[in-house]
């Protein structure tokens, strides 16, 4: 459907713009504000708002795992039109979410071409996860890893206070 493409195109333009602006900055500013952190911060705020809306009508979560499952099923499918394909955890606060056909990478390649560009396009989504979790009361560090497109893994490490 055309409306799925809307966000994909917008996201590509956002990444391009952020990197273009970075190129025109002074070197000293470049160290302070990285493109990845800018994109991550954008995703964070969006994640906070979206999770508020999506959890409005559901009962409270039993525990962290219940929450992560919600993220992998309902949250992911509302935003990316499919669920996370695989969720693994060490039951000690680390979760790995694997998406074998990540919506924002499908247009790049189905192998290793353009692999080095992939991390730029995952920063926003990492922020999205971090923002959603933060609003639900869990602070986390989220990183993404790609070895074969369009499959990618998001690693979430919950920070214990």
């Amino acid at each position, binding site marked *: 459907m055309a409306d799925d493409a809307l966000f994909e195109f917008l996201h590509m333009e956002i990444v391009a713009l952020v990197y273009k602006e970075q190129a025109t900055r002074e070197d000293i500013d470049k160290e302070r504000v990285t493109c990845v952190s800018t994109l991550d911060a954008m995703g964070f705020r969006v994640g906070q708002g*979206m999770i*508020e809306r999506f959890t*409005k009508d559901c009962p*409270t979560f039993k525990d962290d795992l219940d929450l992560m499952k919600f993220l992998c099923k309902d949250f992911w499918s509302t935003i990316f039109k499919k669920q996370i394909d695989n969720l693994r955890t060490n039951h000690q606060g680390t979760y790995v979410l694997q998406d074998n056909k990540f919506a924002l990478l499908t247009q790049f390649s189905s192998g290793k071409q353009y692999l080095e560009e992939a991390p730029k396009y995952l920063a926003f989504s990492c922020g999205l996860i971090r923002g959603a979790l933060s609003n639900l*009361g869990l602070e986390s560090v989220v990183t993404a890893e790609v070895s074969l497109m369009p499959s990618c893994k998001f690693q979430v490490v919950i920070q214990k206070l």
Partner: protein
Amino acid sequence: DNVCSGELKFHYTVHTSLDVVEEKISGVGKALADQRELYLGLLYPTEDYKVYGYVTNSKVKFVIVVDSSNTSLRDNEIRSMFRKLHNSFTDVMCNPFYNPGDPIQSKAFDSIVSTMMVQAC
């Protein structure tokens, strides 16, 4: 002077009710495993007021203080007031000009709250 002390009393009532809210939500996992509702019901009655609570999945707590003499307000009406509050709060959250954690300045939110308060009296 009178207005100020009235406001202070409300602030105090709401503050103490937060302890009851914490008690209720931490009890969820153990005794009330099935009841994972957002609406917490009557928190505690004082001589002048009845205090109701509601907590969202994002740990935002809503507290409604009703005059004890108002016996016409039923449980389902309180529930629907909380739903309206939750819906307006969600809209505030999605407003790009709102920074989470800041006091709410949205006029739309204020007008929904005022309308509800007028309807309840």
